[in-house]
């Protein structure tokens, strides 16, 4: 083995882990991030246009990355930040925004009807591809439980964003408020073939 080859291998051994670390940092190293499989409940929800949505097939048949969060229309603090992140992603993606599916599930199904949800999306300049869904309290509970994100009282909810990769149907779970660069990185990673 020549000295040049040895030096190249040394560089390779040093740099590859470094490169891998950088990637982890960009796509999750700065916040808690786990990957899990979830089984979608077969429930009928209603979106902001009053259309019924069969949730299981809506999610599972998507060939696009899905970003999903739990919010409610009159939330004062963390939901607007989560929604600002979604709005920012759509804005930054521009024409590519149609390649990601954004789903917000209400945790206040008594109050959040299609009119409330439509107004909310309008306030956040939502583009097509971002659905806000409500349903019966029992069905919303089933969805929360399916994602291991059951929130019995909306006033003590917590931030959670889930990203589904269309490649394998697995979900990345982010339990913090993150920057729009982080959301973009998660979207890219989920969508990368």
């Amino acid at each position, binding site marked *: 083995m020549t000295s040049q080859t040895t030096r190249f291998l040394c560089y390779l051994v040093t740099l590859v882990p470094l490169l891998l670390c950088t990637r982890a940092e960009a796509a999750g190293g700065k916040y808690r991030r786990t990957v899990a499989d979830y089984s979608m409940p077969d429930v009928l929800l209603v979106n902001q246009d009053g259309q019924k949505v069969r949730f299981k097939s809506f999610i599972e048949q998507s060939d696009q990355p899905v970003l999903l969060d739990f919010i409610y229309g009159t939330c004062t*603090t*963390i939901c*607007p930040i989560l929604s*600002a992140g979604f709005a*920012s992603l759509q804005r930054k993606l521009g024409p590519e925004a149609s390649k990601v599916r954004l789903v917000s599930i209400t945790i206040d199904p008594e109050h959040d009807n299609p009119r409330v949800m439509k107004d909310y999306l309008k306030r*956040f300049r939502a583009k097509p591809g971002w659905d806000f869904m409500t349903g019966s309290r029992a069905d919303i509970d089933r969805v929360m439980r399916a994602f291991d994100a059951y929130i019995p009282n909306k006033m003590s909810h917590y931030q959670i964003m889930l990203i589904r990769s269309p490649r394998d149907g697995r979900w990345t779970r982010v339990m913090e408020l993150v*920057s*729009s660069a982080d959301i973009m990185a998660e979207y890219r990673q989920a969508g990368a073939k």
Partner: protein
Amino acid sequence: MNGAAGRLRATGRNALLPLLCLFTLLFWVAAPRAAEEPPGVAGLTRAEALRLGEQLYRKGLLPSGQPAQAIVQGDTEVEADMFSCESCHMRSGLGSYEGGVLTTPTNGAVLFKAQFNYRQPSPDQLKTIPAYMLPLYQAPPRRPAYTDTTLSVALRDGMDPNGRVLDEVMPRYLLAERDMAILVYYLKSLSPEYSPGVDQNTIRLATVVTDRVPAKEREAMLKPLEKYVRGRNSRAKTVESRAGYGFYAEWMDLIYRRLSLSVWELKGPPETWRSQLEEYYRKEPVFALIGGISHGEWRPVHEFGEEHRIPCLLPATDLPVISQSDWYTLYFSKGHYQEGEAAARFLAAGEQPDRDGELLQIFRDSAEGRASAAGFRESWQKLGRKAPAERMLSAGEAVTVELLEQATLEKRPAVLLLWTGPEALPLLEKVAALSGRPETIFLSASLLQDKIGALPEQLREKSYITYPYALPAGKGGAHRGNGAPLGRERRIAARMNSLGLLLTDSLMMMRGEFYRERFFEVIDMLQDRGHPYSAEFERYSFGPGQRYASKGCYVVQLSPGPGSELLQKSEWVIH
């Protein structure tokens, strides 16, 4: 010459005198005005600066009408009308705690005062504090008072006067100097002192009763409230005696106040209520109105509360004002309107063919009838449907077979919504037999009351009843054996008991922050409540700005047979 000079002097004196008088008058008029009207900011009057500041704080809109720009989470650009200062810091400015995020107060009384970890003792109190605890009380402030400059830095750069970086959820606002000055000016005026109606010992409350309310209903409303106030005040001596020292003095009992409850009796027609309310309020500026009962609509009291920014907690009315933006009255529900709304949503969600143009509403020209019909009509139209045909019965007009026949033959409705009392039930059978129409009938449980079981057997299959109460099969609820709702007096009493529970929670959560807006903000933060808290309803749910606690209404049918049971046909909340 002398003469001319003398005339000139005389003319000068003559001219000077009125000028002096005018100047004195101007000074006399202007001086008190200047004292009454503090200066504004940025070349604006005080009133205009406060209006624009409030617009920026509450709606996120700049004086130009455009949304302010900001950055959150380090790099996320937001427009401030997506979520404004008020979203997190609340209308009162006293902040919130939600989802693990603590939002600190931004009202004038807190921002511009140094904040200590321990209450600052008086020189006399200082002498009684043990030496080993003195460092705690003499420690420098946790945060020095903000100045206009340091507040601008916090709003723009997210750094407090200690140099501490604020959490990234706090937006960094891109504000021009003038806009910043207006916002800072507004914050200085935000909740600067306790609201009227509270002193060192007492929170003053009032309840409104109008003169045409039946005596039994008046009693059903007043007795539980008076009992509640007596019960709470009976603890006063114990609480006040322990409030002098230790933990209780520091945290707990400083917040305790006795309650006083005045009864504001309104007489005469509703259009005179407003001036009577103003007079009561002038004599006794109460902190809030609780409960209350009126004949007819609640609107005059609602508008009084809205204009003076006085909270009105849970009046016993089924005729509330329906509004998406009004803030100062929290109702039990939307009442009769909610039943119309539920019928519309139930029909729209069904699998029936499109019924456009084939619906007929018959309702009485009463507050209840109009509210039910409006609830259906407005909800139906919001769902993208055409307005239904309508027939309004005048106040004294009897419901007859001929009237129903004529209306149904003329319109041939597939769906008939009959927002009347039980007097129409025996006639419906004949009408339905006449032509096979209507195919579906909607009725209201709150209008039928204890006659709900009088629905003819043959009509039960095609009849749906809006039922805004908890179902008898549920864990609780308040109803008679056959599913008919409780009588009005008992429902009123149940609601007032429920109000007492809510008041206990909200006064405790309000702590020492005796601001009217805070009173409702803490209620907004309560978790949802079911039985027995929610009295006759299935559930109360709360949330910022949500002003109808019970949001649902079942649609039911009656089972056949004499011992009729309610058959649930919808969820509590229909989407």
